[in-house]
């Protein structure tokens, strides 16, 4: 993984407050947990029916009945609980999930998120993504700022089918931390070595720049 990606993930981890219940989506978000301090008070949820996820395990140490929603073999921490899928999503939809961190294909300046379908190319179904995006109290996106071809993923409007409308609160990228505000995208922090001009150039929508000094992560 590039340094920029690592710093993005470490920065995202700092947004997890003590006592939160958090769902970390498949891919980059899952790795956020590796950047939490030891003994940090947090409850990790996975939608296949577990609160209190512990470290992932190698096949030799794995329990065949104990996976996360991405299929990774995980463990439990003292105080974990197993439950059925209805209870699991009850937790998500009723406001008990304080934060979810998700990947994205596109994020629009009004907070619309597209991360589940590329018509004609990729349509495996949304899994639990729609409910996580629509109902977590706070939705953060972790994504590279641009796609592999260099096209911006932060846009005025999403072009792909939505996962949920107006759901994203904050975006962590390899270039910046950006909030979704009523006025659109607002730059909050810059990655080391990245300039405001770089971020503007890589963003497909207007970007509000704070008047004060911009923190570096």
């Amino acid at each position, binding site marked *: 993984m590039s340094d920029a990606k690592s710093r993005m993930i470490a920065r995202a981890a700092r947004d997890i407050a003590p006592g939160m219940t958090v769902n970390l989506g498949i891919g980059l978000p899952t790795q956020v*947990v590796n950047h939490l301090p030891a*003994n*940090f008070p947090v409850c990790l949820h996975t939608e296949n029916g577990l609160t209190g996820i512990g470290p992932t395990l190698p096949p030799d140490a794995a329990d065949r009945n104990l996976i996360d929603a991405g299929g990774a073999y995980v463990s439990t921490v003292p*105080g974990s609980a197993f439950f059925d899928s209805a*209870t699991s*999503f*009850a937790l998500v939809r009723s406001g008990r999930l304080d934060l979810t961190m998700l990947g994205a294909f596109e994020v629009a300046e009004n907070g619309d998120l597209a991360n589940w379908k590329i018509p004609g190319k990729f349509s495996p179904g949304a899994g639990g993504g729609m409910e996580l995006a629509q109902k977590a109290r706070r939705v953060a996106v972790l994504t590279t700022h641009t796609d592999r071809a260099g096209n911006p993923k932060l846009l005025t409007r999403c072009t792909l089918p939505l996962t949920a409308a107006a759901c994203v609160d904050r975006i962590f990228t390899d270039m910046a931390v950006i909030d979704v505000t009523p006025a659109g995208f607002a730059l909050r922090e810059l990655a080391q070595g990245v300039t405001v001009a770089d971020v503007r150039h890589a963003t497909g929508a207007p970007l509000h720049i704070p008047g004060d000094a911009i923190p570096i992560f």
Partner: protein
Amino acid sequence: MRLPDKTTTMEQAIAAIPDGATIMLGGFGVPGTPFLMIQELVRQNKRDLTIIKNDANETGMGVDHLLVAGCVRRLITTHLGLNANAIRLMNEGAIEVEFCAQGMLAERIRAGGAGLKGVVTDIGIDTEMGAGKQRIEIGGEVAMIETALRAGVALLHAARADTFGNLRFAATARNFSPLMAMAADTVIVEAEEIVPPGDIAPDDVHTPGPFVDHVVHVPQLSGEYAVVRR
């Protein structure tokens, strides 16, 4: 990573409940009723409460203390048959009472707890319980919407809790408690026993800790919890 500690004192937990609150109370008859927290509501003189509970207990017990102390404005329930005092207050207009079919009360609370807006049902459709409820056509038949119920606070009695709020209920004391635990903004649990996280095996949890906000130890129960000799 470790799971947060949610233990507190009953006085503190109950003090945060404002007058006018909507409060769900676990329990079906005696089992599961949080008698000590109900006593604390009375002691702290909460007013103008809306109470959601299967029943109003019996005269001189549990919910009846709230009624006698004039704490209750409104009661959403299924059956008051064992509390003549509650029926009298209802008939006098001193409290408002909304009756639900028992399984519909359970589903309405569960729907609130599951982040749903309501459920579609035909229970009571040909009775006065169905009057005034929104009707829709579904699968070629007419059905009704039962709207979701949520509360500001749920007060629950557990046999055992860990400090993170994972709960175990005993026998028929479970009843509405796991549903109410999902359906309130603040969930306060009185537990006969509090254990460290991990002492309740993850496969044996009745209510997962993330639904619970505060856990209070009640080492000594009142006589109200005992077998009732009628």
